[in-house]
């Protein structure tokens, strides 16, 4: 069965994982990776009775470990996340290089060069290199599909996890692709007894497994060699292309056929074999490198010292940000067309902002007024990652640090230990579940003088209103982590409740020691779409059922 399907690049990868017989897909939402998991989830749902599963996890590390456990049990699994999510999963990812895999395991990671929706533009290829693991880098939607299949085959052949690296422009490029036959999730059987010690990373085993991993490297390079190539040309000036660099250059060749004569090195898989690099550098005196994000290939070629290597490091390509056709044209010295003139009007930026009627705004207004009332209008507030990060902008300017998932609570504790009073953290419910929990445990244990505000809109708002893992459980979690019941309040962020909310927030700020204020009102987008309707109906029925213990809801 072959057919044309139209989908985003990140969705094509998910389709391939499904077709390649994954038993499960796991992930944590994060732009531009989110649609990949959601597509897999939809396929699993349609395939009811097919024995497959798809689960969002509390965070990327949990998601990765779920996939690894599924691999151990002998089944193929897909795990999706954005680039900074891989930092969270790095412990699992780097160590799974030593354990190896049983069922094929593919990590779909979506980088965000240009930082369209991220706090940095780190390059996941570096993390694959760091972990001594293979990375495949598609340049088109069809390749996203084909390379995912390849990644599963390689993962099982080499017994290592394989990274599939996408970037925003490919993840969110919609195009048709051709599918292969669907495999059932049959699996390869549980990790055999003889291999159990490989999975027990006590030092004696880990030392052996590290040697094994290094010994696999020539096979990893061989596998990459089948996907990388030199296209010979004329002249001593060439180009080295990876990822979207291949896509942009390929299209420029259509428009400027003379470019086809340039010798080129095309890289689609890592680790790149040194012989290929040497052979290419032997054919050119100068090479322009077009790759998305960090100068990974550029540095490798530059270190060989055989040709003049140009790219991000010498300014031939801008040092930061994503590639574009214009960047390639400029570097190649191609004329750029004259377009229509820009209007002489000044065009103000239309920044994203809170939705009309969003509860976060009401919560922030209460927090700010309470801070003024306790004589701390200039207090520095630690924020976190989500829609509520928008409060860093004017006119609210209500949070003064946003670093990474869960940082708000621990940073507020650190600042309080330095003597900052009041020390306030603002964190969303999903971010709280993601990595706020251990931080709050530490806050309670240290009896730190912090006020932790949980903005509970019941969903992961920013990425498309996926259900939060802490749904209906925030208070129980807070109490379980050691916050006394008297120091926990739940409020409803509505303009009509403003005065009460300010008073309650003030009390929390004046309290010496850790206190938690939960502002709960469902995201108006999810409310409109009815995302939690079914969940709430079930919860009501459950509460009304006399044979069940009633749910604790506050």
């Amino acid at each position, binding site marked *: 069965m072959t057919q044309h399907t139209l989908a985003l690049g990140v969705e094509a990868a998910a389709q391939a994982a499904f077709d390649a017989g994954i038993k499960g897909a796991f992930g944590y939402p994060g732009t531009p990776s989110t649609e990949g998991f959601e597509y897999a989830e939809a396929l699993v749902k349609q395939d009811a009775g097919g024995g497959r599963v798809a689960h969002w996890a509390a965070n990327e590390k949990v998601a990765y470990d779920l996939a690894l456990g599924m691999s151990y049990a002998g089944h193929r699994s897909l795990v999706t996340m954005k680039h900074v999510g891989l930092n969270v999963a790095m412990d699992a990812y780097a160590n799974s290089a030593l354990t190896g895999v049983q069922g094929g395991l593919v990590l779909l990671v979506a980088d965000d060069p240009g930082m369209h929706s991220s706090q940095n533009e780190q390059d996941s290829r570096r993390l694959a290199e760091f972990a001594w693991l293979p990375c495949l880098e598609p340049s088109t939607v069809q390749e996203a599909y084909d390379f995912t299949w390849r990644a599963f085959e390689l993962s099982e052949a080499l017994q290592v996890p394989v990274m599939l690296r996408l970037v925003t422009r490919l993840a*969110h490029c919609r195009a048709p692709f051709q599918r292969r036959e669907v495999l059932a999730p049959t699996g390869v059987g549980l990790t055999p007894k003889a291999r159990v010690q490989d999975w027990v990373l006590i030092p004696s085993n880990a030392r052996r497994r590290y040697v094994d991993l290094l010994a696999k490297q020539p096979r990893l390079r061989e596998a990459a060699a089948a996907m990388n190539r030199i296209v010979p040309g004329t002249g001593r000036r060439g180009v080295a292309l990876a990822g979207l660099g*291949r896509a942009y250059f390929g299209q420029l060749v259509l428009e*400027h056929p003379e470019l086809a004569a340039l010798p080129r090195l095309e890289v689609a898989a890592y680790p790149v074999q040194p012989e290929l690099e040497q052979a290419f550098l032997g054919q050119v005196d100068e090479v322009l490198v077009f790759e998305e994000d960090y100068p990974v290939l550029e540095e490798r070629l530059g270190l060989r010292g055989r040709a003049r290597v140009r790219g991000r490091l010498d300014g031939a390509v801008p040092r930061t940000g994503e590639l574009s056709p214009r960047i390639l044209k400029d570097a190649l010295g191609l004329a750029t067309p004259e*377009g229509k003139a820009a209007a002489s009007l*000044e065009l103000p930026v*239309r920044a994203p902002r809170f939705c009309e009627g969003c509860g976060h705004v009401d919560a922030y207004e209460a927090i700010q007024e309470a801070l003024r009332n306790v004589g701390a209008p200039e207090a520095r507030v630690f924020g976190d990652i989500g829609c509520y990060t928008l409060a860093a902008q004017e006119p609210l300017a209500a949070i003064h640090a946003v670093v990474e998932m869960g940082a708000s609570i621990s940073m507020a504790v650190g600042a309080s230990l330095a003597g900052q009073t009041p020390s306030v953290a603002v964190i969303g419910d999903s971010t709280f579940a993601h990595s706020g929990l251990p931080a709050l445990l530490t806050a309670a244990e240290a009896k730190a003088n912090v006020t932790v505000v949980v903005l509970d809109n019941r969903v992961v708002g920013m990425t498309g209103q996926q259900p939060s893992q802490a749904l209906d459980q925030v208070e129980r979690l807070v109490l379980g982590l050691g916050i006394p019941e008297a120091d926990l309040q739940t409020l409803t962020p509505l303009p009509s409740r403003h005065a009460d909310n300010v008073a309650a927030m003030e009390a929390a700020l004046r309290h010496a020691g850790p206190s938690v204020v939960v502002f709960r009102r469902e995201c108006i987008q999810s409310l409109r779409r009815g995302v939690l309707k079914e969940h709430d109906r079930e919860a009501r029925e459950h509460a009304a059922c006399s044979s069940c213990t009633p749910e604790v809801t506050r």
Partner: protein
Amino acid sequence: MNGARIHGIVLSGVGGQGVLSMAQIVLEALRRSGFHALQSEIHGMSQRGGSVHAQVCYADQPISSPLIDDGCADLLIALEPLEALRYVPMLRISGHLVVAEDPIADMEGYPPLEDVHAALRAVRGSHLLDTEALARKLAHKQAGGMALLGMASRFLPVAESLWQDVIAQRFAAKGEKVTAKNLEAFEAGRNLIGEGVGA
């Protein structure tokens, strides 16, 4: 230079206006007309009332670049006038622009509307649509977007019946009435621009 001609369409507006949905209709119509086509979009923060834009490229042969270079787009479809001005430099000298006159001006520093309209009228190949008036005339609040698409259709190599098929398919789940309303808006827009203008 005698290379292939790759065509580009830019769609712009404000989060929530349906830019991405319109881009998908255009992509589907071009694909079904036998072109190789792909579409690029930016999600994320932009969904929260910020600027949104999408691009569609098409050609007779397979293409791979998700991005159109400045000065290379043939057509700009803008659901909001300020968001149109932002992307005018992406148009070729010979390019066309169809744009809604009604602003979403809930922001600081929005220039006087008459200046925005004047700047748009000064762009050669621009076609402004009073979306509000049209919506009133058709008694269909959301008519503007489909009418703009109808205007834009004059500049795209897609048969009228195919547009109707794609639009009908798109709204099928919402029932016959909604589908008919949208087809009506499309026709109204299409009739605003003379036949053969885009040829």
